[in-house]
């Protein structure tokens, strides 16, 4: 094969180009730290990375949601704790009043305190967090309980807010107030407000052992305490669920991140070794090119 000057020059410059391209590509990988710098570098990997990025963003969102659940449930739980305290106090008073040593006047005095406790419970049931009535179901823009004297009316609804904690699962945020305080839909549920006003009536009537007497109300107070405890246990298990969900999210996050790293990131050592190797190859190509293009017969014709 004849080797001609133009042919050789083209050949040499083509080779220098491709050697330099390799150096540039290796350099890009070293500086960006990424194996995929254009979609076409690895179409399947690139699309997977996109998917993972969006997946991670949605995990972040779920995590944020869960973080919003905690304060709400904790607040509701502590408020119900106060309600429980009030009921315990009512129980104490009722127990004391059931004692034969108590006079009708004593019982009438106690009746006033029971009335106060009932008022306190009503305020608790109308608790607001973040300008929302937390025991009103969906109708959280108005006070859910109004005192009708003998009994308390519930103006809220039975809505339960479900907060997504993953693409497939939700955690329930609230329990409607009529369930908590009036035992609606619960077997053996009692209306706590009714119990307290009945107790008040029994005290005023100085009725200890009658059908609606203090003794009867004592049993109903116990039922009411159990009812509150049940709801608080429910809140506790929701917190557990949410914590579990958060842990699961963290694991998913970690997996997604490690998969992304595996697809997208370069092995730094390998990338740097490649870069040095291509650079050496390029230098060798340059120096050999300088030697091969230079000499001609003209140099030796004198």
């Amino acid at each position, binding site marked *: 094969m004849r080797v001609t000057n133009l042919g050789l020059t083209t050949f040499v410059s083509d080779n220098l180009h491709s050697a330099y391209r390799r150096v540039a590509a290796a350099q890009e990988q070293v500086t960006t730290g990424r194996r995929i710098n254009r*979609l*076409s570098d690895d*179409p399947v990997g690139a699309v997977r990375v996109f998917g993972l990025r969006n997946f991670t963003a949605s995990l972040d969102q779920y995590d944020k*949601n869960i973080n919003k659940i905690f304060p709400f449930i904790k607040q509701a739980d502590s408020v119900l704790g106060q309600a429980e305290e009030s009921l315990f106090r009512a129980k104490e008073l009722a127990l004391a009043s059931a004692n034969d040593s108590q006079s009708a006047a004593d019982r009438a005095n106690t009746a006033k305190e029971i009335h106060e406790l009932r008022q306190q419970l009503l305020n608790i049931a109308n608790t607001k967090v973040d300008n929302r009535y937390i025991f*009103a179901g969906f*109708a959280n823009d108005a006070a859910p309980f109004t005192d009708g004297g003998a009994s308390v009316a519930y103006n809220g609804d039975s809505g339960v807010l479900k907060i997504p904690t993953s693409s497939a699962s939700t955690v329930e945020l609230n329990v409607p107030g009529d369930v908590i305080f009036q035992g609606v839909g619960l077997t053996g549920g009692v209306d706590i407000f009714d119990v307290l006003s009945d107790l008040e009536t029994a005290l005023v009537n100085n009725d200890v052992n009658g059908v609606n007497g203090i003794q009867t109300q004592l049993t109903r107070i116990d039922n009411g305490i159990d009812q509150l405890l049940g709801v608080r246990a429910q809140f506790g298990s929701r917190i557990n669920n949410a914590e579990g969900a958060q842990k699961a999210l963290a694991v998913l996050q970690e997996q997604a991140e490690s998969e992304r790293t595996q697809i997208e990131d370069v092995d730094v050592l390998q990338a740097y070794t490649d870069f040095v190797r291509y650079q050496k190859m390029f230098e060798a190509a340059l120096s050999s090119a300088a030697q091969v293009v230079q000499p001609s017969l003209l140099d030796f014709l004198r």
Partner: protein
Amino acid sequence: MGIASTLNLASQALKAQQAAIQTTGHNVANAATPGYSRQRVALRTTTPAFENGIYLGRGVNADNVRSVVDHFAEAQLLDIQSHLGSLSAENKAIGAIEEIFPAAGGIDTALSGFFNTLTELTTNPGGAAERTAVIGKANSLGEALRLTRGQLATVQLNLDQDLQSAVHKVNSLTEEIAALNQDIAFGESVGQPANDARDRRQVRLQELANLTGVTIQEQGDGQVTVLTQNVLLVSGNRAANLEARSLSSGFHQIEVLSPDGMRFDGTGLFNKGEISGLIKSRDVSLNNAINQLDLLAKAVADQVNTQHAAGFDQTGAAGGVFFQPLATVTGAAGALQVATTVAADPKLIAAAATAAGAPGDNRNALALANLNNASVAALGSQTFQNYFLTNLGGVAETARVLDGEVQFQTTLLAQVQARREASSGVSIDEEMTNLILFQRAFEASSRMISTASELYQTLIEMTR
């Protein structure tokens, strides 16, 4: 036969060597000219004289000057150029599409951002901040789609402009080839090859092949007939004239005025070379990319609006439209935006599933957020996100394949060009060696003349 004959022989030889030296000079001068084929003087012994019973050589004649051409390599080059032309054009277009869908932040991020704010809304359906965030992200999604679609449309327009300038280039090339055809036919009518004109024509044919792909038929008089897919581009000294005629779509079609006087729309007839690559990219790749965006935008608007209408807003009224309704798929990606009523009053976002539950109900917000994971029939039963990513993957894969093909054809081109250079290229060392040979022969021949002159002298002195 006498001394005169010797003198004649020497002067013929001088002329022949002079021609060879001149040609060597021509070769060296064109050592770097692209497409130049080295030339050789065909030296031939003249017919010997029969004298006194012997054949007596009568020296040398320069018959003609021929270039050394590897016809096979030249034909291959035309073929490779036509492939390379279309592949490069397609690769350029798909590369642009690939760059428009930016690797960091884009439509997919905007989509997940929008649905994430809806998820956030479920935690506080009555919250003004949450509602405003939903509208903000919905507008970012519309903006991302609009921006991307606009950039794709710009690429499409650029391709159309490239097509117009390619058409102009074809016209000037075919005219040049027709003119060279005429020169060659005229030059070769005296029986001598028109080497330089042929080299120039070959270079132009390669450029033309890159633009349209060519089929070549050489005629007896040295002229070539050039066709591309049965469209006659050059016939003898007449060239076709292409015209980029604008269509109602704003793009251009190629109207051919053939050398034989026919006029027709040739847009579909170009299926090789840069022109075909440009047309294919403009009418297929870019159209697909834009159409897919439109489909996505329309599907998002329809799905979200349907679910939104099923709910109730914060005032307890039935949900209206969330996005401005899109009537057609075409142009949808450029028109996706939050309905002005909702944008003006975030309370109109229908987060509740029932009118009664209005202030605190999050069930419709949850249903809206879940649309992100729902498969959509209009998108081939894929989720919004997957539909977008699948199409993106398709573009990336095409870009990768085209990149490989362009590299392959480029390598092939370099190899065949090297082969062409190996036979037709100028080697300066070789020319120098030849130069020494021709120079020595020239010197020796001039020596012949002085020897002949001395012979005359001897004869003249003899008769004195």
